[in-house]
C-alpha cells in the first residue's frame, strides 16, 4: 500500500512538473499584428566547388558519352542568416532570389526545404547555385541580349571572365528580387530581401 502511494505521489509530481513546464513553454499566439518580419541577410558567399574554366562545343568528339556544348560548372553557395525576432517559432517555407553577376541576371535560385527558426534565434541557410557556361550563355542572350550587346563583349567572354575571376570575387554578385515566406500558426508573412557580395 505504501509502495503504491509512493508511486502515485511520484507520478503526480511528474504530471505537475510536466504541466508547469508546458505552461512555461507557452508562447504568444501569432497574429497578423504581432508577427514581426523575420530578417534575411546574406552572411557570405563561397565557391562551393571549382572546376576552373573550359568549354567545348558539339563539334568536339568526347572520349566517352555524347558530344554537346559542355563546360565547367560553377558551383556557388549563398549563406544567409535568417533571424526570427518573434516570441514564437516561425517556419520558413521557401525562399528564392535572382542571381546576378554584375548587371546581368543569371538565374533564379532558392531553397524550398521547410525550416523552423526558434523564437529570438538566427539560423543559417546554404543555397547552392549551379551555373553552366552553355546554359548561362543561352539565358544571357535570351533575357539580356541588349545588355550583352551594349557591354561590347560576347556572352562567352563575359562568362570566361566570371568563371576565372570567381575565386577572388573580383566582381559583384547579387541576390536580387528575393522573397522568403514565413508561417506561424497559419499566419503568413513574406519578406523581401536583396544582397550584394562582396
Amino acid at each position, binding site marked *: 500500500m505504501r509502495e*503504491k*502511494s509512493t508511486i*502515485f505521489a511520484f*507520478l503526480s509530481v511528474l504530471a505537475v512538473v510536466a504541466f508547469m513546464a508546458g505552461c512555461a513553454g507557452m508562447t504568444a499566439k501569432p497574429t497578423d499584428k504581432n508577427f514581426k518580419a523575420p530578417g534575411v541577410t546574406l552572411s557570405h558567399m563561397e565557391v562551393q566547388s571549382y572546376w576552373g574554366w573550359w568549354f567545348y562545343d558539339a563539334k568536339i568528339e568526347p572520349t566517352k558519352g555524347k558530344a554537346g556544348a559542355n563546360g565547367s560548372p560553377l558551383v556557388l553557395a549563398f549563406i544567409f542568416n535568417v533571424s526570427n525576432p518573434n516570441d514564437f517559432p516561425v517556419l520558413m517555407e*521557401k525562399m*528564392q*532570389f*535572382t542571381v546576378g553577376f554584375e548587371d546581368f541576371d*543569371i*538565374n*533564379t*535560385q532558392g531553397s*524550398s526545404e521547410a525550416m523552423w527558426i526558434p523564437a529570438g534565434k538566427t539560423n543559417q541557410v546554404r543555397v547552392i547555385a*549551379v*551555373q*553552366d557556361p552553355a*546554359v548561362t550563355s*543561352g*539565358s544571357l*542572350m*535570351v*533575357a539580356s*541580349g*541588349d545588355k*550583352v*550587346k551594349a557591354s561590347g563583349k560576347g556572352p562567352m567572354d563575359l562568362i570566361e571572365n566570371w568563371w576565372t575571376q570567381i575565386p577572388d570575387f573580383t566582381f559583384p554578385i547579387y541576390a*536580387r*528580387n*528575393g*522573397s522568403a*515566406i514565413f508561417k506561424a500558426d497559419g499566419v*503568413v508573412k*513574406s*519578406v*523581401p*530581401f*536583396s544582397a550584394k557580395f562582396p
Partner: protein
Amino acid sequence: MDLKKKWFKFVAVIFIPALIFGISASALAAEVKVGALNDVTGATSDVGKDYALGIADAIRYVNDNGGINGKPIKLYQFDYGYRIPEALTKYKLFKRLGCVAVLGWGTGDTEALSPTVTQDKMPYVSASYSAHLTNPAKTPYNLFAATDYSTNARAAITAWYDTRWKKNPEFGKRKPKFVCSYHFAHPYCSAPIKAIKDQAELLGFEVGPDQNVSLVAIDTKSQVLAMKDYGADLVWHGNTTMSVSATVRDAFALGLKAEHIVNCWGFDENLVKLAGKAAEGVFGAPRCAFFGENVKNMDKVVEYAKKYNPGVPLENRTTHTVAAWANTLALWEAMKRADKAGDLTGEGILKKGFETIRDFDIGLGVQPLNYTSTDHRTAGKVSIYEIKNGKFQVVELVDLKSRWPEKWGKEWLGW
C-alpha cells in the same frame, strides 16, 4: 488497486482524446501531391521564372480555398534548367513521391515526356501549347488551359486580314505578301508554321520565303532585308521576346513596311519595354490576359503576387504568371471533379475531371475551357491583341470554329 484504476482513468482521459485528435488531424491533413517542372535557370528562364512564380502563387490560392475538396495540395516544384535529362530525372522523382499530376513547362520537357506520361497515365499540364498535343488519340495526358499555337496563329493572321488588309487600298487588287520569321530548329517556333501557312493560303495570301532567326539573335538585319526585298506586308514572329524585339526594331530601323503578328512567348510586357516605338501596332495572340488587366480573377493573381513575392516588383510580372494560374486553375477543377467521383488517379483526373469540363470559365482572359475524349482543343475563339500607345488592347475576337466549322471539326485537330 483503486489508485491504480484512478491513475489509468487519468491517463485514459488525458491521452486517448489526444491520440484520437492527433490521428484525425493527420487524416484531415492528407495531401494531394502535384509536381511542377520549371525553368528558372536555363535558356527559357527569361519567361520561365515568371511562370514558375505563378504556379507557386496559384497553388497557394488553391490551398487557401479548400484544396482538392478539403485536401491541400503539396507542391513539389523543381527547376530543370531546360535540360531534358534533368526533366526526365525529376519526373521519376515525382512518381516516387506519389504525385498524381504534373504542371510541366516547355516544348522540350513536354515532348520528351509525352510517351512516358501517356504510358504512366499522368496528367501533364504544361505551357507548351503545341497543337500536336491536342489530339487525345495521340497524346491523351498532355493538356493546357489555353488555345494552342496553331489556333492562335490562324486567328492572328485572320484578325490582321479582317482589320488591316481589308482597309488597305491594295485590297482586292493583289494578294497580301506573308513571311514567317522564326528559329527553324526549335520545336516551339516551328510548331504552328504549317497551320499559319495553311491559313494564309485559305485567306488568299502569297507566302514568301521563311527567315531563320535564332532565339538568341540580337542582330537580324540580313533577315529583315530579305523580307524587304520580298515586299512583305505581314510577318509572323514565332520566337521569344528578345529576338522578336530585335527583329521588330531592325524592321523599324530599316524601313520595312510590313506589319507584325507574334506568337504568345514573344508577345508580352517586355516586348513593349524592349522594342519601344517599333512595337506600336504589333498584333499578337497572348493566350490569356496580361498581368493586371481588368478581367475576372486577375485581382487574385495580383493579390498573391504582392503577398508572396514582395521582392519582385509588380511591373516586372507578366502575362506568363497569368498563364501559369490558368493551367493551375484548370488542373484544380479537374482534380476536384475526379476526387468527387472518387477517382483521384491520373486516369480519373483525365476522364472524370478534364474530359467532363464544358465551357468552364476560369476568367483571366482565357476563353471558356472544353475538353472532350476526342478533342483537347480548349476553344475555337481567340482574342487577338494589338499594342497601342504602349498598351495591349483587344482588336478582334476571332471565332475560327464558327467561321470554318468543317475545317475546325474535320481538318485542323492536332497540327
